[in-house]
């Protein structure tokens, strides 16, 4: 039997940047088994019954928060939820104080989403709990990248050698950066595509192709990962109008059918139907958007399980 990594090389999951290709493979292998568990009549295992996890969300989320919570419950962990909007953060409490207060109630792990890049890294240096980054500003969203790559692996058998185009608002997207890092580590080819105002300059240092023409990008790739236009993060105008953006970079059925080969369409959600992707594409056979959500629970179970095994 081939030598397998038995444990992750990191204590926290702050970003894909800290993971090795072996770590990612270990997470995928573990997630395979959890996916199997999730299809049983009793979808629960007792592994984490002595672990308490706090979900600390300083930013809105539907999928990620529900997916993490479900993953924790399937592993029999105790969970508490915290949303900044309904907490004492609005009274002026600092991040470290807030988290230390949660930890003094004997919490072992923190799953955190925060609007500022690096919030998880900062926290990991100042508190004793294990930190899982559930999205920090426009920096990283590691579990999303893992579940995206896992979904590609499920569809094609492997990620190595596949061509993935990440299309849309790359500048404001934490999904884009984590995806690029993860896919490159697994040996895929990556292209980013979007209007030049939404492609950050640093992207060239990551060894990815840059393309500004949607059709050329789609004809090149095996998988198109369509990103949402993050209007809430855009403090200035990056393109003249949403209508113009969707005419230039929106994926519709007509374009999809005109391509030289059949490609797979992904979207990290939430979808702005009619902007970056039309309804008939999002709901088509080529779309694996809902598979991504399903795989999200298995991937998060694997991450929490492997991290929890490192305690003491």
């Amino acid at each position, binding site marked *: 039997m081939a030598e*397998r990594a*038995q*444990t992750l090389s990191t204590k926290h999951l702050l970003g894909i940047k800290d993971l090795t290709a072996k770590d990612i493979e*270990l997470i995928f*292998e*573990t997630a*395979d*088994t959890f996916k*199997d*568990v999730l299809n*049983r*009549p*009793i979808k*629960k*295992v*007792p*592994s984490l019954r002595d672990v308490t996890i706090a979900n600390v969300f300083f930013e809105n989320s539907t999928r990620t928060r529900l997916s993490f919570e479900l993953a924790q419950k399937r592993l029999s962990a105790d969970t508490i939820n915290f949303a900044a909007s309904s907490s004492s953060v609005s009274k002026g409490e600092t991040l470290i104080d807030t988290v230390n207060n949660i930890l003094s109630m004997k919490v072992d792990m923190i799953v955190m989403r925060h609007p500022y890049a690096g919030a998880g890294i900062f926290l990991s240096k100042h508190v004793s709990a294990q930190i899982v980054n559930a999205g920090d500003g426009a920096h990283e969203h590691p579990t999303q990248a893992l579940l995206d790559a896992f979904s590609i692996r499920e569809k094609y058998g492997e990620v190595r050698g596949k061509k993935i185009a990440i299309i849309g608002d790359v500048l404001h997207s934490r999904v884009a950066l984590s995806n690029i890092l993860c896919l490159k580590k697994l040996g895929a080819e990556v292209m980013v595509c979007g209007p030049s105002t939404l492609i950050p300059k640093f992207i060239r240092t990551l060894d990815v192709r840059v393309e500004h023409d949607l059709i050329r990008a789609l004809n090149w790739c095996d998988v198109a990962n369509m990103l949402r236009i993050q209007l809430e993060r855009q403090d200035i105008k990056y393109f003249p109008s949403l209508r113009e953006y969707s005419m230039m970079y929106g994926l519709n059925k007509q374009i999809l059918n005109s391509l030289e080969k059949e490609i797979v369409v992904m979207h990290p959600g939430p979808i702005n139907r009619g902007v970056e992707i039309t309804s008939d594409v999002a709901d088509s056979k080529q779309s694996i958007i809902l598979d991504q959500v399903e795989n999200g629970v298995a991937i998060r179970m694997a991450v929490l*399980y*492997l991290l*929890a*095994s490192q*305690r*003491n």
Partner: protein
Amino acid sequence: MQNLTLLDGPKFQITIQRLCHQLIENHDLFTNSVIIGIQPRGIFLAKRIIDELEKKLPKAKIKGGNLDITFFRDDFRRKDNLVPSPTQINFFIEGKKVILVDDVLWTGRTIRAAMDALLAFGRPAKVELLTLVDRRYSRHLPIEADYIGIKVDTIDSQKVVVSWKETDKEDKVILLSEK
């Protein structure tokens, strides 16, 4: 490390045959019985038993499966047996007689976890345990096997290793002792 062979050659085969006959005594044609091997090492014994039973009972269709117990262990974080193996149980065990199969019965903790894991697939009518090697007097839990290949007296620092023709070239049970 000192090696002592406990079982090999014709005697190994006779032991397997005896276990099969004991199973047939209690389960007839296995119409309501299933055989489940415990991952990772019990699956080879389960496979061998099923193959031998099918030779003896050409009419019987014996259902077999593999059960992984990694997530049900009570030594999570105390040992490095993290990475799971696949579970394959493609049938309902509700109301069935289940024969759990593992190569070595030692502390009984694996079997405790296996019984826990098994319940995720339904409520069996009965659960029995078959083991090739019973390391007696070393149980941590009140668990005993229904079918036993050989009984051996061992101390904690010793290790019992079962190797199989299919994967390790030879059918053999070895006792490893330190020094």
